[in-house]
């Protein structure tokens, strides 16, 4: 049965402030993310977009403000609970894939499930299915060093989606790829996320990529400078 979308934000940030010394990376950001939607976060270097992603994902604690996941406040959780939350409710796609070099593609995809105490056989089977789904058949036993940039990024997407998270955070996911591979990779990510109903937040410098997404949030000097659609 297809997922049912609701208007209530799956993820929300209110008055988010993040400081590094005297520098304000975030100076009071409000943002709502609805289930299943894809948002591009754009802005010049140092504007605070990556900090926003990290604060929303609970990787970094906010100095001020609140973060809600499905209406529940999550910014006050301790590190252990935030880790569990990231493992179970979020998926991550970083630039260059950031796969574990020692593991095969299949094991990399299975890793979040294994960490969530899913049985080994079940996790590996699910990982294999995701790799097939992302057009990576026959690459399951390869190590990251044996994959092309686009293939590695698809493995990373499979890893981010395998445990069916509510939100996927992607930081410059096509930054190291050529245009065509980048487009293919993004299409794979958005299609797969649409299947699971996961919201996708993508930090990018790529204007074309941002323009192809239904919603864009521009950050400047730690604040939301504009939103499309407004």
């Amino acid at each position, binding site marked *: 049965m297809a997922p049912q979308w609701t208007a209530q934000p799956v993820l929300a940030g209110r008055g988010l402030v993040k400081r590094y010394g005297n520098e304000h990376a975030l100076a009071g950001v409000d943002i709502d993310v609805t289930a299943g939607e894809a948002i591009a976060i754009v802005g010049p270097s140092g504007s605070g977009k990556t900090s926003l992603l*990290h604060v929303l*994902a609970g*990787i*970094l604690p906010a100095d001020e403000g609140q973060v809600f996941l499905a209406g529940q406040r999550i910014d006050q959780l301790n*590190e*252990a609970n935030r*880790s*569990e*939350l*990231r*493992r*179970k409710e*979020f*998926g*991550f796609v*970083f630039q260059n894939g*950031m*796969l*574990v*070099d*020692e*593991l095969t593609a299949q*094991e990399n995809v299975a*890793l*979040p499930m*294994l*960490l969530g105490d899913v049985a*080994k056989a079940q996790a590996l089977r699910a990982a294999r299915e995701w790799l097939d789904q992302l057009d990576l058949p026959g690459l399951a036993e390869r*190590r990251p*060093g044996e994959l092309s940039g686009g293939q590695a990024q698809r493995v990373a997407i499979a890893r981010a989606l395998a445990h069916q998270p509510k939100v996927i955070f992607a*930081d410059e996911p096509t930054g190291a790829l050529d245009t065509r591979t980048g487009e293919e990779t993004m299409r794979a990510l958005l299609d797969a996320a649409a299947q699971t109903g996961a919201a996708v937040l993508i930090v990018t410098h790529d204007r074309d990529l941002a323009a192809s997404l239904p919603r864009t949030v521009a950050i400047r000097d730690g604040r939301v400078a504009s939103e499309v659609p407004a």
Partner: protein
Amino acid sequence: MNPFVLGLRVMRADRRTRTSSILILVGVAVATILVSLLASLPQAVQERSERTGWQEPISTSEEDATMRVSSTVDHFGDTAIKRIDIAADSPKAGAELPPGVPKLPGPDQVVLSPALAELIKENPEAMLAKRFAGAQVGTFGEESLSAPDQLVALVGHQPTELTSEAVPVASLNDGIGTSDGMLELLAGVGIVVLLVPSLVLVASASRLTAARRERRLAALRLAGATPRQVLGMVAAETALAAIAGALLGLLAATPLHQVVSHVPWAGATWQPDDFTLPVSISVLIAVLIPALVVLAATLGLRRVATNPLGAANAQERQRPKAWRLLAIPVAGLAFLGALASGQGSQLAVLGGLALVVLAATLAGPWLTSVIGGVFVRAWRRPALLLAGRRLRDDPKAAYRASAGVVLAVFTGSMALTVLGSIEAMAGGGSEYRDNVLYVRAEADSAKRIVRETNENLGQNGLRASAISVPMTYLSDAEGQQVQGMVLDCSSAKELTRFEGVTCPAQPSVLSPTSLAGQLSAEYEPGGQQQRLPADTPVWSADTADPVLANMALVDPALLPEVADKGTVTVVLPTTPDTLEVARSALASAAGGAEVRSLPTMLAEQDAKLADLRRVTVIGLLTAGLLAGASAAITAAGSVLDRRRTFGSLMAAGTPLGVLARALRAEAALPALVATLGAGALGVGVGFGLLTLIEGSIPMLNAWSLVPVGLGILVALIAATAAAPTLRRVRSEPLSDE
């Protein structure tokens, strides 16, 4: 650009390079301290030996002699006192004195070391001063003593007072110190055992930046730098830290020499200056160690220099082959073979150790890879999978951290196995009971010694209980020969280890060895024989004491003339309360002959074993600490090398505990396996060595487990060392540094 300038620039800009340089500096400093200390040992032995050579004068012909000297060891409690009894025959005797010896004492005069003079003052006269009766005419200077606290007495006599143990001597300056082969061997072993972990520590420190440096240098190569330029930069970067470390090590070694001079060896500590190395050796150490470190660093980067793209892409490494395992039995057999053929010479032992190092270097990575393979096949949890893959992918790097401890555990297990079995052999050795003091002397001297001893005892209100026990060689009709103590049975029960025998009613021979037919006695081997009465009863002495196996008890009535012939033992029973007074009474009458007893003999054995145990444990602990530091640095370095991976895993919600467990398994398991393997090999080779020692019984003892415990400690240090670095990564998981 000048490679040194570039090296300095990198160090200024890169925090991790700075950290690595500091660790290299510390590692080189530690290695320099250890090597300079160990290199100074043979020289320290030589210094001490030359200083105390006069205490062991060499004999000369009667024509050249100017004095007669007897050099023995006395005891006060368990403390050894060097005693030199001297009778100067000629005015020339004191013409040339060794440094620190103020004068030769005449009859009834003594020269004492400061520590002995102090000890004499602190104790009742009858207990100690009586042994060195006479006026103190001088005090030894430090240049004549092994250590400031050595107890030494030079006791003057009339020539007739000395026993036949005294030898003719031309000059005390003719004394030559004996070299200490054991300590020289231990110094050599120490250099091998401690230098390797020191260098591993340095290698671990330099590996902290290896991944980043490989990338940087690969980039430089790709930008057009020649291999020579690249290697020059590495050499310069490493040399800066290594040279500074070597200089720091030499500086720090000086105060440490003072500390080491308090560690006793062969019954004495050292003079602080004994460990001061000649400048030439210090310079050699300061050049050689940094050179080794620089060489290792440049060799480690050959791959980058010759194939930068290969390094940049970090292609898969070749897996070690199984033939490497053969190196272990080959090295073990070669070690034993070398020892057997070389009669335990230093070269054989050190060569054998070098073989073991080589074997461990060859077999260790293969073993590590196999362990990794087991994890990869059998994993159930991600931590074991991650650890297994790491061990499988780069077993050489994973094993590197264990290399130092492997050697330390092997050597320690071997040494302590041998030591334990030798300890088990110690003991026995005297036919007299523990409470009996005795002196060997010629028959003529013995009468005087007995008389004077009993007089001395009487003066102190003690019973005149010294008696003489003539010694003979007893032969039966079939040529069976045993040593005979001419002593009545009831006295023998009181004084000797024949304490359990039943005394026959009539004069008899009691022997644990069966004797048959006509018995005859001689007073020295090959001397004139005297027949015992034909009807002499021979009783079997029922004792299993091995010391008495070739001894017999002969009633004096069977050999009435024996007291005037051959060698006699003057024996004196004591009680714990009268021991030192009795020893003084006997020593002052003994005319330079050594006063012995079973406890003092055992104490000497114990002291030698304690020396060996002490240096073994000190060496092991040092090696263990070095290996632990290496393992810790390696573990921390492996986190830094994979910071981005770990960071992304943490960002994605991987609990710190899972990564910590993976790192623990990765660091601890090779160390544990290496420890157990090296321990087993060490015990095996130790047992092999014992087969070369006659009468030894190979046995495991608690000390043999010390190195294994040490290895486990290292493994635990390694296992926990990554946690702080991981926590730092967690605080900012996605930052670059």
